[in-house]
């Protein structure tokens, strides 16, 4: 359908309220692209609907597994959950930066942007309702306090994230932000060395007292 000089701009004998029409051919590029758009997509369909691993869900599952593998490796390298391991996290800057963001997105709506307390209790003071050790905090986050509206985050977050968060909550202790909520629970004087000594004394009983993080991650 090439444009040739002969039938270019030949007027048809159509006339509607003064409007006329040319008998021009369809532009070649227009026809070509139209055909390409018709022909090309079946190949796309055959590819994406034609085999395992290519659908949106398959790709999603693969991406989740890849991420899970990465987390599992970290967790296995970490060993059992003790006050010592969690306290160790507090010196890992990358982990704490990530946890700080998690705190903002998951915790701040109830505990305030800086842990000053809101619907939920103040996390920056010396008073704890469900225990002030890092392992206590870990347990509270994991199991929640359903009667008070604190969710069981163990069902909603990966274990690695919960561990980092538990350690992070320990770091804002004593921050004394403005507009802090009044204390709730029992006063608790956090003494890491004493807890570590206690853990060391209990160590021979291992592994009965500790949890296997890999098992908990499933």
């Amino acid at each position: 359908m090439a444009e040739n000089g002969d039938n270019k701009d030949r007027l048809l004998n159509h006339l509607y309220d003064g409007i006329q029409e040319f008998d021009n051919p369809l532009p070649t590029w227009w026809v070509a692209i139209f055909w390409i758009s018709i022909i090309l997509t079946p190949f796309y369909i055959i590819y994406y609907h034609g085999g395992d691993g290519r659908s949106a869900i398959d790709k999603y599952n693969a991406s989740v597994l890849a991420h899970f593998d990465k987390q599992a490796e970290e967790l296995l390298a970490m060993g059992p959950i003790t006050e010592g391991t969690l306290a160790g996290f507090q010196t890992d800057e990358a982990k704490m930066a990530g946890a700080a963001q998690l705190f903002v997105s998951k915790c701040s709506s109830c505990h305030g942007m800086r842990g000053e307390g809101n619907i939920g209790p103040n996390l920056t003071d010396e008073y704890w309702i469900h225990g002030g050790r890092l392992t206590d905090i870990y347990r509270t986050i994991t199991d929640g306090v359903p009667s008070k509206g604190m969710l069981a985050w163990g069902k909603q977050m990966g274990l690695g994230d919960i561990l980092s968060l538990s350690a992070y909550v320990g770091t804002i202790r004593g921050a004394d932000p403005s507009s802090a909520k009044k204390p709730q629970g029992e006063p608790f004087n956090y003494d890491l060395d004493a807890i570590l000594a206690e853990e060391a004394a209990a160590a021979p009983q291992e592994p009965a007292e500790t949890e296997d993080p890999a098992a908990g991650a499933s």
Partner: protein
Amino acid sequence: MSAQLEKFTYDDDIVRKFCLATVIFGVVAFLVGIIIAIQLAWPELNMGISWLTFGRLRPLHTNAAIFAFAGNAIFAGMYYSSQRLLKARMFSRALSLAHFWGWQLIIVAAAVSLPLGITSGKEYAELEWPIDIAIALVWVVFAVNFFCTIWKRRERHLYVAIWFYIATIITVAILHIFNSLAIPASLFKSYSIYAGVQDAFMQWWYGHNAVAFFLTTPFLGLMYYFMPKAANRPVFSYRLSILHFWSLVFIYIWAGPHHLHYTALPAWASTLGMWFSLMLWMPSWGGMINGLLTLRGAWHKVSEEPVLKFFVVAVTFYGMCTFEGPLLSVKSVNALSHYTDWTIAHVHGGTLGWNGFLTFGMLYWLFPLLFQTRLWSKKLAEFHFWIGTVGILLYIVSMWAAGITQGLMWMAFDQTGRLLYPDFVETTLRLMPMYWVRVLGGILFLAGALALVVNMFMTWKNRPKKYEEPVYEAPALDRSYQEPKDESSPLKDNPAHFPKLAYKVDRFKRAAWHRRWEGLPLLFSVWVAIAVIVASLFEIIPTFLIKSNVPTIESVKPYTPLELYGRDIYIAEGCYNCHSQMIRPFRAETDRYGDYSKPGEFVYDHPFQWGSRRIGPDLQRVGGKYPDLWHVRHMREPREVTPGSVMPVYPWLLEKDTAYGKIQKRVDVMAMLGVPYGEALNRAEIMARDQAAEIAARIVEQGGPADLADKEIVALIAYLQRLGTDLNRPVEPEGDAAAEPVASMTEEH
């Protein structure tokens, strides 16, 4: 052939009426658009007044822009051009007036009911059932008037503009009726007969084709009349008209599912939607080519004639948007663009640029003819053109930037594989400068429209005392006419002999067969209807009949009566305008919101509430995410719990009483639609009161205000806390489940 001449006149009064309505509702639509644009950047403008909140005004804006502004513009142009193209006065003045006043009453009903929260909750089809019926009736009046005018015509063949009008009238009727099917629970409340995946499919079959057959085909028809008239040039290619008309009508219908990529809609439908969207590119561009190339030899006029300037920019925007559309329908592009302002940029390129500017050009061309005097100020029209163009560009560019920015932020991970912006509001705050640029763009566009108002008024003031009504003459159609055989094959000029088949192929290629159809409006209309219906059924039938599209999830149960009522509040407040309920299978989404959405989760959702834009976060799995008290405080003052949030305040939810008396009827209607309600069929109200008391008690326990049990907020919380929680709920033993299908749901959160 008897050539007795008949005398006739044209009804321009009805055109003047529709023009006036176009201009008035245009200003209203643009103004409401600016208000809601400011609300997104400065939520205080919601002012704590229910009927002024974004969720209720946004449907008012879209309905006003599409059905009031564009609708009246279409009617004005169609009534003006059809009479002249058919050489016949409109069939019935009474029907014309019934169409005009009926349509304006519908608009007024919409303008009252939408801010009051009376809505069916389906985008661009929000109007409740009594108004839906009125729309159908007025549309029939319009159709009868139009087709009878065609029947009475004195022009044998239908011009391409009329083809597009026919496609518009037939298809809009089909779309409107089948998408709006619902069962009323009261005068102002109904439930869509479709649920979940099927409702989503029908809604976007409608929504996409409202764009196609309300904002595209009628405007192409207008373009085919007003552009060659204003430029005084022949249309570039008749053959292109034929091909792009039929391909557009057939292909457009299939493309709806591209609005639902990566959702719970079955993948085959989404892929079909993408394919047909890509195929749609050239048929759309056929219109643009025919428009722009019609101006060959008249480009010098564009520089001095504002009407042509408007047309050129309109057609250019049409070309841009119909390229952007197929681009956005590609799944991997859509993964980024969906739920963002990129979509908003896309539709405003179409509505402001294509529909708006084509309408303005048409109006400036019509005013001197309708008011029978010269246009008051060509300079002011020039001003309108330039300020409007700058306005559109500011609008679109800022929304492109906002959409791509937010889309990328949602998807960003840090090195440890965690979301880089886990806090949703962070991605909202980043958009604020762009939102203010949009406001500025909108104000410039409105300023242009106000210049149009002044120009129209002043032109009208200079009208003659009495309008002249020229009398035209033409012979009546000879009903025994036979289309002459097409003898003009170029093959004949060639000395070589061709087989018969060659002539047939040549005749088909030159579209010579089409000329006969153009003389047979009934045949033509039937073929349009067939094209549209066949294309629709190809997707509708499998969507409804193939069971595996929506695998049953045993743990998914109907909403409790209170939750159902809360859901109605969610719909009435227009929450779906800012919150999706559809998590796509990307880790960036499942990390943020929870498990991706499964088709079986929505089987009791009449109507579906998947949403199309995330101004706020997805809510599909918000159930159990926050304590009840959090929701109370969040609804009262969102910024108290989420600093920087742009959500409106909803203080009246803590004050308005739940209408317990209405709940039983609503449950009954749901049961009629096939929702297995069991016990709730007899004691919905008691169940609702019990559940409300429980939630209210929990709020008090968490330290919140007392006496909320009878307030709407508790019903809404009941619904929100239920959302998305069924998926992983353990299935109860058979016997219990049958006896008590809904009562157990409140226990878990």
